[in-house]
């Protein structure tokens, strides 16, 4: 019989493992933070969400060293790499490399050029002087194809080449390497970072610094993986020690993991079938919320100390199911938070809770040994003290409403150490990298409409810059000029014979008869009939990423252009844009608004779920007990939130997740401690709750000691909350020997 049970258990585990492997195979892991944000409620927020992770400058890797000469060598080495679109803003070393591609072929469409006799005279006069200074073969060829150097001027404009070295106040020289792939593509970022490190080692740079979103991502992945693994191992070991201390049997310690395993397997299976893709954050937070499932087997074990496991299971069934159902309701509320990431998180946790409760109640008992002796004890009840709970609840909620602040800054969710972010900011100031705060978004139903409108906006901005009202701006008009402008440029190109005639005269005038201008003439003639440049002209070319910084399809026939503004923006800028569809986007306030909206929505869902939980408790138990359980849970959550707000100044998303887990745990403790029964079962419940609280406290304290903000905030939130929840529930309950139920 016993063997059969183990075979059954093993088969169950095998089936779960197969299902898990199959669903993990189906699941695609994504790391786009946008999946965790609610639907935008304003156009600011829409731009923010659509451009998240692709804001200007986000694919910059900034390399620093005090050794300037070595940094120059590094720059040369990196400019050969296919992983970077540009290194140190330099035009590629090899001029011939510039003489290909869309922008070069279309140079007479993208730039104004004076095709008159005097214009060509002026251009050749300037070239004659330069060639006399030094007639490099590359330069001669370039001049032969583009005597006014409009293509070269275009490159300089687009890449804003610096003439002085970038150096910070503390003497760190900087090198800018812009990666081909976006910052959130961590595999490519890892390659890019590795390449920089390899070259630096070879060159002998011993004070290398790499900053930038991608570099942080790579570094964090390593630290978080290492740190999370280390902390998890230590926390698990501590958990095992607590469980062994509580139950003194290795078998129980091992079996305690079964519901959690089943819960995560079931969570994966459901996510795999419902969503197909899973956000990285879902897993991290999802496993945290599943922390409550470790309590389920402990209740069973404690109650099986003096009676058969099957009987124990029946004893605690209704209480455990009530607790699980209430927690599930709360987690399903998160699932309706509005963002797909939250949907995944809620579904994963809710599925896990149900499966863990069922595993603990119906599978685990079969795996525990039968106890011959049935405990004999007298009927007993407990009395719930409302005074303490109500006082705590009222005081905590009042204090919370009066003092707690919410942190709306999305960047505090970033696990990047503050120091590193400040260093990155200092680097960016030296580089004059685009401000990532203000943009002007122009939206039209077609590319042409949007580009024309952008040109209108650019004219007004140019005026503003001239009057000193704005430091500067960058638009994508250099890459994709309005159609009308391109047509005008086409029409200005003279006929071939007339161009030959003018060129010959200018060459003679400037002593450049030695020059071959055939490539120039051929391109000029070709430009007259070439297709005009649009955004799609750049698809699959090296400049595609650059074009995407300025233009994108927003779906539903929305074509959006972004103009990047530098420095502070005048207050009346919106007024200046009157009559256009352009809108100033303040990414900072948009992101703050988004987080606030997000939290409001989440809190509303939770409020709704509280009502549901209350109904569940009232139906599942006496009104008196139900109200006490709910009050204790709420009091614990409020005190936890209050403590965290005091500790960290303001509450953030990690705290909210931590408080949610605490809600689940506190509810569970309160339900079990208030369960009427015999003196033995009441003692068992107390034993179980103490074991649960001790194990959770130990495990999360270890996480809370981490240097990584996410782990630290979550860990401390749960450790504080669980201690308080346990203390409150224990202090406000008293056994009544021989009392009534």
């Amino acid at each position, binding site marked *: 019989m016993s063997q059969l049970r183990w075979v059954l258990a093993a088969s169950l585990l095998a089936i779960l493992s197969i299902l898990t492997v199959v669903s993990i195979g189906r699941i695609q892991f994504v790391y786009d933070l946008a999946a965790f944000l609610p639907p935008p409620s304003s156009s600011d927020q829409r731009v923010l969400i659509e451009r998240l992770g692709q804001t200007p400058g986000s694919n910059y890797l900034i390399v620093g060293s005090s050794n300037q000469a070595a940094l120059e060598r590094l720059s040369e080495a990196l400019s050969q790499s296919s992983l970077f679109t540009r290194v140190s803003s330099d035009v590629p070393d090899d001029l011939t490399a510039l003489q290909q591609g869309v922008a070069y072929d279309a140079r007479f469409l993208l730039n104004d050029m004076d095709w008159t006799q005097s214009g060509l005279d*002026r251009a050749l*006069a300037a070239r004659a*002087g330069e060639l006399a200074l030094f007639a*490099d*073969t590359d330069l001669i060829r370039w001049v032969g194809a583009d005597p006014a150097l409009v293509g070269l001027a275009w490159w300089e404009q687009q890449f804003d080449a610096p003439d002085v*070295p970038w150096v910070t106040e503390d003497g760190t020289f900087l090198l800018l390497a812009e990666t081909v792939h976006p910052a959130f593509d961590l595999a490519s970022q890892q390659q890019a970072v590795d390449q920089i490190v390899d070259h630096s080692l070879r060159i002998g740079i011993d004070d290398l610094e790499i900053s930038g979103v991608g570099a942080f991502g790579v570094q964090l992945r390593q630290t978080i993986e290492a740190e999370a693994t280390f902390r998890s191992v230590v926390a698990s070991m501590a958990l095992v020690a607590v469980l062994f201390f509580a139950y003194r049997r290795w078998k129980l310690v091992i079996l305690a993991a079964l519901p959690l395993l089943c819960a995560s397997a079931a969570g994966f299976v459901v996510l795999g079938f419902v969503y197909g893709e899973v956000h990285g954050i879902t897993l991290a937070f999802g496993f945290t919320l599943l922390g409550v499932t470790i309590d389920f087997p402990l209740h069973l074990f404690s109650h099986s100390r003096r009676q058969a496991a099957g009987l124990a299971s029946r004893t605690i069934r209704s209480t455990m199911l009530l607790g699980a159902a209430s927690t599930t309701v709360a987690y399903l509320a998160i699932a309706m938070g509005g963002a797909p990431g939250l949907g995944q998180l809620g579904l994963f946790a809710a599925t896990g809770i149900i499966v863990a409760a069922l595993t603990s109640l119906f599978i685990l008992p079969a795996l525990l040994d039968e106890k011959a002796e049935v405990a004999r004890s007298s009927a007993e009840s407990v009395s719930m003290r409302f005074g303490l709970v109500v006082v705590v609840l009222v005081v905590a909620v009042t204090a919370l409403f009066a003092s707690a602040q919410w942190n709306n800054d999305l960047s505090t969710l970033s696990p990047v150490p503050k120091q590193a972010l400040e260093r990155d900011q200092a680097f960016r100031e030296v580089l004059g990298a685009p401000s990532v705060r203000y943009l002007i978004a122009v939206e039209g139903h077609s590319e042409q409409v949007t580009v024309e409108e952008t040109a209108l906006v650019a004219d007004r901005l140019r005026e503003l810059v001239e009057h000193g009202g704005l430091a500067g701006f960058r638009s994508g008009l250099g890459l994709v000029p309005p159609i009308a402008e391109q047509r005008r440029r086409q029409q200005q190109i003279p006929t071939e014979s007339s161009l030959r005639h003018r060129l010959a005269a200018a060459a003679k005038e400037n002593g450049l008869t030695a020059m071959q201008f055939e490539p120039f003439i051929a391109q000029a003639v070709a430009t007259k009939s070439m297709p005009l440049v649009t955004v799609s002209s750049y698809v699959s070319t090296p400049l595609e990423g650059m074009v995407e910084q300025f233009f994108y399809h927003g779906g539903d026939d929305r074509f959006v252009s972004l103009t990047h503004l530098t420095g502070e923006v005048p207050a009346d800028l919106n007024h200046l844009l009157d009559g256009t569809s352009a809108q100033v986007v303040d990414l900072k306030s948009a992101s703050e608004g988004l987080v606030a909206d997000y939290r409001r929505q989440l809190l509303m869902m939770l409020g709704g779920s509280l009502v549901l939980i209350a109904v569940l408790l009232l139906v599942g138990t006496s009104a008196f007990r139900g109200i006490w359980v709910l009050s204790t849970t709420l009091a614990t959550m409020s005190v936890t939130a209050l403590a965290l707000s005091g500790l960290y100044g303001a509450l953030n998303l990690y705290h909210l997740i931590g408080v949610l887990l605490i809600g689940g745990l506190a509810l569970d403790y309160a339900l079990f401690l208030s369960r009427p029964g015999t003196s033995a079962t009441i003692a068992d419940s107390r034993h179980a709750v103490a074991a649960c609280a001790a194990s959770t406290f130990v495990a999360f304290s270890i996480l809370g000691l981490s240097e990584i903000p996410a782990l630290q905030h979550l860990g401390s939130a749960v450790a504080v909350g669980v201690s308080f929840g346990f203390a409150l529930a224990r202090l406000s309950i008293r056994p009544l020997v021989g009392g009534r139920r």
Partner: protein
Amino acid sequence: MKALRRMLALSAIAIWSTLATASDLALSDVLPDSVLGQEAQEIAFDETQSSPALAVDLRSSGTLIYQPATGALTKRIDNPAPAELVVEGDTMRMVSGERSRTISLRKRPEVQVFFDSLRALLTGDEETLQRLFSVEVSGTRSSWTVQLTPSHERLRRLVSSLVILGNERKISSIKTSHGKGETRLMIFTEPQS
């Protein structure tokens, strides 16, 4: 803008080479006196450049100017069109037509090296020249040839060799050869002081 920078760097070499001198047997015999006056020196030149990309040679003329007080060097082109390159301290400025560019030599350490060696030359610092180039001196004091070949790979990328012809402590011409089959011959049209 690397093309122009490279161009400037090469011009700088040309200037440097005009000031280099050599002697029949040893470099020290052709180096100028180490102490120079404060007077600016001006040397007129005619230049012929050839390149595989040119149908015929490109000819130009101008003046080299050296200011001992500031150490500034200027290559001024008068024909076929005015242009000017000035190297002073660690910056290089080029003016041609409407374009004017200033480039920091700190970003081009190899170019900086050339100007360092120029200073070495002007102060009679033979050691620095020997460190940067392999030097061959041939001929007699009245008609000598100095061939300089860069010893460093980085410098060789800019110039493959310099052949300087002269008599006594005066240079009459410098022929510079670069990769890709480019050569430039600078002939001094008036005596140097």
